[in-house]
């Protein structure tokens, strides 16, 4: 079942007449099926984050349509978009974006609270998820009292708790050390498999990308290449490295494997 369809999306920054026009995305089209774990890769400035913002309805495309679960985002007004974000989309950011003034528990249930859920329902959902994600013990702590890995897991928990149609992860391992990064990727895989969550992850970390089922490479606002995971993670990893070395902008992350 198709959960997301992007049709001919372009995004142009700067006014039409000015010479400084910058085309961040150029006529991109693709679709994502339910339960898919898709990676988007590309060098800095290739338009990855712009694409993610458009799918997440934080930004609007200049032309083209973005359809999530049969709903055309370009036709929604501000309020409807906010509703749509709460209901259908879960965000995970590079810098976690947890609210520092709230405990992890409060952070996680925030989307539900904004949505007006009953306290009992919220707590039931939270109990189940936090157990799976292994943060039950630190729920009453504040973000600055726990490690980065725990913060990112809480952020993941917040993204998942509303049962969104699609989870958008923007460089989720970017701020984590390799061990925590791996733990988080395992977690995303778990979410993907156990809850059949659809995940779209933007990254330039080759190791993180190797956890995906499919990788889409973007360069200069256009889709450049696509890769599918095979039997062996190692092979997939090497294939990604090959593409990235052509594209430019990949980190040399082969040393991940030398540690493991």
């Amino acid at each position, binding site marked *: 079942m198709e959960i997301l369809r992007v049709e001919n999306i372009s995004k142009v920054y700067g006014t039409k007449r000015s010479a400084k026009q910058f085309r961040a995305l150029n006529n991109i089209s693709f679709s994502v099926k339910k339960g898919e774990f898709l990676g988007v890769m590309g060098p800095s400035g290739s338009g990855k984050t712009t694409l993610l913002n458009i799918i997440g309805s934080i930004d609007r495309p200049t032309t083209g349509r973005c359809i999530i679960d049969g709903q055309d985002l370009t036709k929604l007004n501000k*309020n409807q978009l*906010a509703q749509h974000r709460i209901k259908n989309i879960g965000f995970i950011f590079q810098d976690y*974006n947890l609210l*520092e*003034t709230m405990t992890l528990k409060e952070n996680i249930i*925030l989307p539900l609270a*904004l*949505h007006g859920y009953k306290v009992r329902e919220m707590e039931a959902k939270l109990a189940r998820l936090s157990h799976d994600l292994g943060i039950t013990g630190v729920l009453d702590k504040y973000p*600055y009292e726990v490690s980065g890995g725990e913060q990112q897991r809480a952020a993941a928990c917040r993204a998942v708790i509303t049962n969104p149609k699609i989870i958008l992860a923007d460089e989720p391992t970017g701020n984590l050390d390799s061990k925590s990064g791996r733990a988080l990727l395992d977690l995303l895989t778990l979410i993907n498999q156990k809850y059949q969550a659809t995940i779209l992850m933007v990254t330039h970390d080759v190791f993180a990308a190797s956890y995906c089922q499919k990788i889409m490479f973007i360069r200069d606002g256009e889709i450049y290449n696509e890769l599918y995971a095979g039997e062996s993670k190692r092979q997939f990893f090497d294939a990604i490295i090959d593409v990235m070395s052509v594209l430019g902008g990949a980190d040399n992350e082969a040393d991940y494997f030398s540690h493991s």
Partner: protein
Amino acid sequence: MKLITLAIRNIKRSFSKYAMYFFALSFSVFTVYSFLALMYNDQVMAKFTYSDRYRAMLISFGVVIFVFVAFFLISSNNSFIRARKKEISTYSLFGMTNRKIGWLLFVETMIVGSAALVVGLAVGIFASKLIAMILLNLTLTHFVGDVEFSTAPKVVYLTVVPFLLVFGVIGLTGRWVIGRFELIDLFKANKMPETRFKGSILLLLFSLMLMGTGYYLAAWRDPLLLMMLALPILVLVIVGTFLFFRGGLPKILSWLQNRRSYYRGDNLIAVSTFNHRLKSISGLMAAIAVLSAVAVTVIASGYTLYATVEKSTYDAVGYDLYFYTNDEQVLHDVRAAFAEHDVAVIMEHTTYRYQARPRTDMFVAAEWEFGTPDTYYRIYPQSEFNQLLRAARERYPQADVGKGEAVLAVRTGNNELLEKEWVGRKLDFSNSSLTVTACMDLDITDFGAYYTVVVNDSDFTALMENGDIITTDSGKSPFDRVTVVKYENPLGSHDLNRRLNQVLAGRVSSYRLAYNHYIDALENFGLVCFIGFFMSIVFILMTASLLYFKQIMAAQEERHLYQTLRKIGIRPQQEARVITKRLLPVFFIPLLLGFLHSIFAMKSADTMVFSGMLAVENSYLIVLKFSAAMYLGYGLVYGIFYLITRRQYINIVS
């Protein structure tokens, strides 16, 4: 000079942030200048009857304002420097010495301060005539015409020097503050989230207990005791307020966080964010509560006095004019004065000051002692008494006393209690006794005695014949008779009243003119009103600009919070609601607490001042009515600053 260019650039860049601060500073310069100018203007001075008192009041309030200006400057300067930690640390990182940075801060402070001085002085000089006219119109009934107002260099000098000194000291303390910074802390400063205040139930109870005790004492009914307790009450309430914001409010918030309604989205965000801000803002909130209480109490008292001055005049004097004399010539001259100024006399009545000493039991009623050996009463036949009442400015019900009965007139403020004690008691004269059947709450017929007794005309004649009533002292010389006069436009006929003062002064044993009392009261209360008004504006401006600045700083730190919320999917209206819930308590909890303090302060003021001035059963209700008007006004002006802050906050976070 490179440093100065840098300083000017810094100021220009953050002008919108400083605008409110600058405005508050200019206004305080303006206020201090205006007060000094009024104080050193001989013409204005000459208009006041008691120029010493006037000068003393202006000086003391000028000092109060100056103290608060200093407080305001110090605390805003501290937050400025903290807000600029990052900028300062960048200078430091690139090798600027502390000395140079301190010098930069000093230059900046002096530039902003001098600009505020110039603006405040310019407005002050420009508006000084207007200010003087407002003051004179407010305080002097007979003031007509113009007042010359020149700018005295001395006043400018007296304003500029202390302000420059304060600015200088503050500019230099910046150097001291940054001297204590560690470079590493500077970089962490912005990232470290403020830790949450847990609060403590002990502090909450203790602070409530302190304030409650203060309130309880303030509601005491004994004016003398209140006078002695004034300082302890102030200490109790102020300490209680600070402890409440320091430890009590956080506890209440953490209780709120345990309630189910807390988990409704906007509450969750607003309460938790507010809770994290409390640490840096609790002192300021407490200061605002105390300052607002002081300011509204001053304007509420001033306004109550001012608005009730006519009533309090007649409560004190009773008649438009009365005087004691047996000299027919004086009476003749008084009548001539009325004729000369063409003022119609509505009623004139002359009576003996009859005196009697009936015996009663010794007892206390409504806090008055009766039956002591030296008690003597003014005694009137009913017809005479009713004539006097008719001559009074206020309308009193006429007395109707049956045979063998007596009515007692004492001003206690609590007639019910008095009647409960008195009705049925007997006044024993040498060979007859009268039963008290009613009491009246008035004292305008006493003319020197403590109490008045009204009896039936025929009983009066009998007592007179019996020698129970005397009209002469022990040396057989007659008491001065009293003449009361009621006439048209008593408070407005300035020339007539001046003439009456000339006729009566020194020639009669005693006289009272409502006009004199009125003019005197108006001068004092008008001045209190005037000063209270200025003080309130200065306080509002300072406290609001401190709050404004703190919230703007907070907004910059909370920006990412709203960005995250928008990504999660908060609706625009919901966001506006969160912002309201976030800011409203910061502004209005202190204000409401300040009002509450003031309500009790007005209770004390009522006991000490108003209840003696206003002859009504419950003067506190009248006081509250006038106070409420002032609270409302204060709240509205304060509310404007809340709205400005809210708007700026929204601009920053969106």
